[in-house]
């Protein structure tokens, strides 16, 4: 589903190489986790895949279902089925959460040649999905993420994911800033979306999120490369011994 080959990326503003040859394949129905120390390039990978400005791909490719992601605008990637749950969801004052969701859902449907959802159908759908994430009517009415707590922001990300039904979900440090209960709620939301047609790329510092969202494959990223891949046990190894040992191992 997602195929990344030899991806090299540098910053646009300064001559700094962040990704130095990433190879990664995420199959439909699988959950892949990427772990790594600060500054290893995990978040950059998520931004480059989702089409954020400020990065230059110097080498390599990234494809989603055979389509060249790197040639597409951010909105086209979303319509093609890519979704990034932000580490820091952005506050948009003045735009109602519901308006935003509906605009996004219908823009994607339009881009795919589907009919737009009617107001009634949309409302029904959003209420159903919001309920499972314990998002109340008030949160839906308020401006996007404005005044939301950390947990509310992350649940709101998962709600968007549930509404947009992407093929590939990237979760960037979704556990950051969450207490145990909030993390459980978010993880349940993600697990409910696990499906054989859908792939996940879960980026995290810590193993604890992976107790709740159990991955099929764990990758360790260090200095812009994936240096080691393995089963869920690899996450435990990191938890017990830190990244230093792996870094030493592959050096």
């Amino acid at each position, binding site marked *: 589903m997602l195929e990344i080959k030899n991806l090299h990326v540098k910053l646009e503003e300064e001559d700094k190489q962040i990704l130095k040859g990433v190879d990664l394949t995420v199959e439909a129905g699988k959950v892949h986790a990427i772990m790594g120390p600060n500054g290893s390039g995990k978040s950059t990978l998520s931004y480059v895949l989702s089409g954020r400005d400020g990065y230059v791909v110097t080498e390599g490719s990234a494809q989603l279902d055979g389509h060249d992601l790197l040639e597409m605008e951010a909105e086209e990637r979303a319509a093609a089925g890519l979704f990034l749950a932000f580490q820091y969801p952005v506050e948009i*004052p003045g*735009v109602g959460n519901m308006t935003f969701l509906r605009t996004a859902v219908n823009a*994607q449907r339009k*881009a795919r040649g589907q009919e737009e959802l009617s107001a009634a159908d949309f409302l029904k759908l959003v209420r159903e999905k919001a309920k499972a994430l314990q998002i109340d009517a008030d949160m839906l009415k308020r401006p996007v993420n404005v005044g939301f707590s950390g947990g509310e922001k992350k649940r709101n990300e998962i709600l968007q994911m549930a509404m947009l039904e992407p093929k590939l979900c990237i979760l960037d440090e979704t556990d950051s800033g969450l207490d145990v209960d909030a993390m459980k709620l978010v993880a349940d939301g993600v697990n409910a979306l696990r499906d054989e047609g859908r792939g996940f790329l879960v980026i995290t510092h810590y193993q604890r999120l992976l107790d709740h969202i159990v991955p099929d494959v764990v990758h360790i990223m260090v200095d812009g490369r994936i240096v080691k891949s393995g089963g869920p046990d690899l996450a435990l190894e990191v938890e017990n011994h830190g990244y230093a040992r792996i870094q030493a191992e592959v050096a």
Partner: protein
Amino acid sequence: MGLPQQKLDATEERLAAIQVPESGAWLSDARQAALGRVRSMGLPHARDEYWKYTRPQTLVQPEVPHAKVFQAYESAVFDDIERLRMVFVDGVFDPEASDDLTLSGVEIEPLHAAGAADIHWARDLYGVLEARGQSPVERSLAALNTACANAGVLIRVTGKADRPVNLTYLHQTEDADVVIHNVVKVEEGGDLTLLENGPGGARLNKVMEVDVADGGAFHHVRTQGRAHERRAATHVFARLGRESTFKSFTLTVNGALTRNEAVIELTGDDAVAHVAGAALGDGASGDFHHDDTVFITHDAVNCESRQVFKKVLRNGAVGVFQGKILVKDGAQKTDGYQISQSLLLDDDSQFLAKPELEIYADDVACSHGSTSGAIDEEGLFYLRSRGVPREIATDLMVVAFVAEAIDEIEDEAIAADVLSRLQAWLERRRG
């Protein structure tokens, strides 16, 4: 001290081209006095300090710059609001298109009819608040308006109006040179919402004088029409009594030239005055120059004033803000706030801001701020990453930017109506 020759010539040239209408004694006296003011001040000239950022030429010259009539396809703003509607076509009151003028607690008379009488309550206000507003800064276009206006409405509010009054100014002729003068007197405890919409004409000179007595409330919401080539100079002069409220909001989309002046005097203790505006201009669809000039005078204790102005500019559009808070000696416990912000969607657009505070009392809290910035790239990417195309995402950010000004409208239904029109207009613009 004489006027510079150029200014004198331009003034006489314009005065030679106007006709002061015939009327009863009270109005005729007011008009003659206003003519005297115009002659002594002279009409605005490019060298005047107060017109440093906006060229007055096309507002002053006798010839009317033509303006194409804008064809709107959607239903008009305020159509969903239950209101008493008065329609002016190219500056002439159209009784056929207007509602019956009966409204409980409110007396409404067209200016041309009331002007025929020898004496009228409006005598104490018509041209009077305008004249007060000529100091310390001259606003001679307003005096010109007082001298020659023959259309407008006189409203006296004695109770709480059960619905808003809506003045609609239609533009139908390419060379319509329109002068409108409204007077509103809110008596003690009176409460009125006035809605205004429409471009008015190819060139519009509009004055509104508002006197809010102790405990009265006046809410004003206007949209200035979307005609691209229209030009307008508008003035609002307001005087506020004790514990009174004055709140005004203006939405401007398009327009070759707009100068909106608000001159507000808080003369009674505990009065509240809010003025807000949102202006959106795109130089690609014609010239856009929008100027908000505000002068608020605190002359009583414990009053609050608030100015919130937002401008969204692209493709060479120009926005101007001149805002002043004057706190007179003795106006203690004044709470004054002023913010003017622009969202510049490209490098070609310009925002010129001149915020001023002049304070002669020692126990006051006044703050002001002015910012210019590009669109928030983080927010834009967030929206796009959800599949919202760049143009729609930009418009969502634009709406988000002006929302703070629209929020100044107290009535939620009216605020929602204004917001939904704005969204529809942006959508139409995207095509």
